[in-house]
């Protein structure tokens, strides 16, 4: 029952509409204009992609995500500094033309550290999310379709993994396995596969009832072939959403752990490791440029990934739209 209160544009003055125009009206007009021009039914691009591109927040997310990702990849071109090069003649300098984000306590250029740190942080987030998704989907798709002992076992194990608050389990494993980049990704994968497994399994349970699956079975196709080749593509939407959201979660966790000094070893620059020094109250008070920009970059990046995930969900799953 809510009528939008925003006076959108000048068209209201020319045509005395009975109600105010909303953004949806403008969108509808655009669609109608396209239809009249005969463009609407040109089957270029899938419906999901177009829906995604119509979502302003998702597009914003995609743009920010791409900018930060590209800047990290192109770090050697964008900055002449080595992120680990200590320069004791230039310690704790505030941002200047020479050092865009200033320098830290050992004179390392923070802009370079943020760019190179992004490489590792994004690698940890995206890499662990992909690994967790591969494991979860491999098990979930097959066991969701076939069931049996593998399904029962995986279900019990995932219940146990998910009973732990994630950060507690991660820290527990860190204390046992020790700190390293590979260990951290391994630990994230171990703690993260359960959620995506559950989701893939649930999707398969509902897809299993569809008639085309019955048809494929009556053709005599093997069960792995039906599960992975014919059913998996229909579950891809939620899987993609899940990968995006767990990327965001892993980046946040890496930052949190490294901030505590328990994530990636301090010798490797990551976003969390740059923030680590902010535990020192003097740094926090006097050298805002060390921790404020990199915190903003992490937040912006995670925000963009979350927007992309939301956009993907809206584009692929009509029932989730609010």
């Amino acid at each position, binding site marked *: *029952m*809510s009528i*939008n*209160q*925003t006076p959108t544009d000048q068209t209201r003055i020319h045509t005395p509409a009975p109600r105010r125009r*909303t953004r*949806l009206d403008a969108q509808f007009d655009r669609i109608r204009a396209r239809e009249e021009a005969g463009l609407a039914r040109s089957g270029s691009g899938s419906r999901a992609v177009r829906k995604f591109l119509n979502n302003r*927040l998702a597009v914003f997310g995609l743009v920010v995500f791409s900018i930060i990702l590209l800047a990290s990849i192109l770090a050697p071109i964008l900055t002449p500094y080595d992120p680990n090069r200590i320069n004791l003649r230039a310690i704790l300098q505030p941002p200047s033309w020479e050092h865009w984000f200033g320098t830290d306590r050992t004179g390392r250029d923070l802009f370079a550290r943020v760019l190179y740190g992004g490489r590792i942080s994004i690698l940890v987030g995206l890499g662990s999310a992909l690994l967790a998704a591969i494991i979860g989907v491999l098990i979930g798709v097959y066991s969701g379709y076939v069931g049996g002992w593998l399904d029962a076992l995986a279900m*019990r194990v995932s*219940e*146990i993994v998910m*009973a*732990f*608050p*994630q*950060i*507690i*389990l991660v*820290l*527990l494993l*860190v*204390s*046992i396995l020790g700190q390293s980049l590979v260990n951290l990704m391994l630990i994230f994968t171990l703690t993260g596969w359960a959620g995506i497994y559950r989701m893939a399994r649930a999707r398969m349970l509902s897809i299993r009832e569809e008639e085309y699956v019955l048809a494929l079975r009556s053709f005599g196709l093997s069960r792995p072939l039906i599960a992975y080749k014919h059913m998996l593509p229909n579950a891809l939407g939620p899987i993609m959403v899940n990968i995006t959201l767990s990327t*965001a979660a892993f980046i*946040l966790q890496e*930052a*949190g752990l490294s*901030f*505590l*000094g*328990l994530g990636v070893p301090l010798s490797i620059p990551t976003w969390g490791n740059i*923030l680590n020094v*902010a*535990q020192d*109250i003097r740094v*926090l*008070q006097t050298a*805002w440029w060390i*921790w*404020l920009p990199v*915190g903003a970059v*992490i*937040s912006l990046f*995670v*925000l963009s990934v*979350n*927007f992309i995930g*939301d956009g993907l969900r809206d584009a692929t799953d009509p029932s989730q739209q*609010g």
Partner: protein
Amino acid sequence: MLTYIIRRILILIPMAFAICFLVYLGLELTPGDAVSHMINPDSAGSMDPAQLEALRQSLGLGQPFHVRFWAWFTNLMQGNFGYSMSGGVPIASIIATRLPATLELAAVALVFSTLVGSLLGVLSALKRGSKTDSALTVVGMLGVSIPEFFFGLVAIWVFALNLGWFPVGGRSMPGYVTFWDRLPHLVMPAMVLSIMLTAGVMRYARSSMLDALSRDFIKTARSKGLPEWRVNLLHGFRVALTPVVVLIGFRLPVLIGGSVIIEQVFQWPGIGNEFISAVRSQDYPVVMTIALLSVMAVLLASLIVDVLTAVIDPRVRLGD
């Protein structure tokens, strides 16, 4: 109803047992045993190996794995969690001294986030599609995207270091007796901890309210000619809020995870703080016990949520 509760508990018991077993396995696999915890590493070198062995035997460490596990497990059931590696303090007493601080922080954050989150969520559902709604959606997204510890740092920088409104960290000062003395210490950590929770509650309350508003009884109420606020508040809000409140239990893992980091940022002397220092010093018995207790808390909370849901909605217990 009773059979439903009993069935749920019967499902939980083997799982809790399996988790205890895994935790014990972790303890066994990590370096060090009860003897090395008891003896100062500097003096251990000068001790007679035969003597150490005798001590191990007397403590039952030479017995087979399942016997040791059973001894550990029965001790656990009696509230005897073993001893910390650093200082040999009973873990039960560490937890007893640390728990109140954590509970205080968690309770304030939980109450605050549930109130604010459901109000904002309902507001956003009532104004669906408006500027307020999209603004709240973006704010909610910001709430889950900004790292909690970064929120904490900014809060300390602005409100403690620059404005001086609140203390930088800690829970108390010498001479503080009542809760009101300590209140300034509590404000920042509790608010920062609330942020992520509030964002989650808001999202959930919004979709729950939208769901309630689309039901038939809302149409009935409206067609009876009730004023809009009565329709929304008395008929919609009440129905929408029940699941939101019940789901408090499901937010426990987020709350525990959040408090681990927030307690560290604000030097809040709670369980999370103890957990981090135990992880740092590789004090495995403490790490494992706290992890075990947090899992048990989560399992218990999910049991309570299930039972409450079944009490409210009869379809649940008849359904499966």
